[in-house]
């Protein structure tokens, strides 16, 4: 029984590791070593091709898996990955393709701020991501966090970009004196 449970755990682990990829797939700009696969048929060989996406480099070929280094220019690349299976008898199948969207998020700089400044909206592109960092509340930055240089991170689909936000000290004014 213990062995069965262990096997189930292992299988469950493998299942969660291999994600079913929707078309188009999304990768981060300049991603290295991204692994792709098709279901293996014993005896078959597989010819992979990567095209269209500027800077993309195919790192391996021949088997049902491949590794790709992606370039840095964002955008949607149709049929970016193609794989053609050849059966054990030497007969080629129909090519299977995958579109790829290379994601390179950007964010607008804000600041510098002074104490007492109001909450300021944080803007990331493409929209829909999440912000994190000191002073972040939802999609806003609160300058009243205090003086400092803060690094805020914008994350969308696992791809990130950062901005530096400076909050200066306010002037320290002494009491009013009478000459």
């Amino acid at each position, binding site marked *: 029984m213990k062995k069965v449970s262990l096997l189930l755990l292992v299988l469950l682990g493998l299942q969660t590791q291999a994600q079913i*990829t929707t078309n188009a797939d999304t990768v981060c700009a300049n991603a290295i070593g991204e692994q*792709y*696969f*098709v279901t293996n048929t014993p005896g*078959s060989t597989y010819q992979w091709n990567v095209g269209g996406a500027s800077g993309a480099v195919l790192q391996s070929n021949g088997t049902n898996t491949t590794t790709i280094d992606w370039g840095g220019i964002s955008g949607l690349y149709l049929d970016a990955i193609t*794989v053609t299976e050849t059966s054990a008898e030497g*007969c080629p*199948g129909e090519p299977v393709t995958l579109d790829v969207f290379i994601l390179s998020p950007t964010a607008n700089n804000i600041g510098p701020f002074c104490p007492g400044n109001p909450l300021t909206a944080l803007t990331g592109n493409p929209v829909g991501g999440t912000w994190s960092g000191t002073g972040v509340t939802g999609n806003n930055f609160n300058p009243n966090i205090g003086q400092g240089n803060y690094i805020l991170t914008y994350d969308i689909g696992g791809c990130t970009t950062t901005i530096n936000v400076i909050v200066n000290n306010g002037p320290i004014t002494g009491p009013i004196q009478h000459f």
Partner: protein
Amino acid sequence: MKNLLIIILVVFTNTLYSQCVFNETSTLTPPPVYEPGDIVQVSYTLPTFIGININWIHAIQINLGAGWINLTPGAPPNNTIGSAGNWLWDNQHTYPVSNLDFGPGWRFVNITTPEWGTFFNGPFNITFTVEVAETCTPDDLSISISIFDDCETGGWTGGGGGCCNDPSFQIYNGVVQLPPIITSSIYHY
């Protein structure tokens, strides 16, 4: 009414005696369909050859589609009470009088009059094996048998045309079945 009856009788008579081969049968083992590498045993039987106008059976030709290879003949046809001679397996033979290009198959070698066939009228049975060639395309796997008598081969000029164009007997008319190559979608780890 009498005229109509005469017409029907004439049509019936021409149909009945327009060829020398009847009731041919065949078997394929294993039965279709076939993939590359399959080896098939074929058996063909002509129960009776009716030699109209003293036409004699002269050759049995095997017609194969381009998808077959490795044709291997079995035992020769029977000639129990026929003319002196023997059945000879031949991949190709051109009959000198008619220039008929024969083969592959069995042809009768009449040792008395080489231009003639045998007067034996059956039954004739042949077996052979063929193999489906390796391929990636649905190649033709047709199998048929053509019976030639000595009117067709040119050795007998008194045949009068009765058997000079016997139709081929179609044993099989399929193509190579190719196992589908189904590649899954591309997944990203």
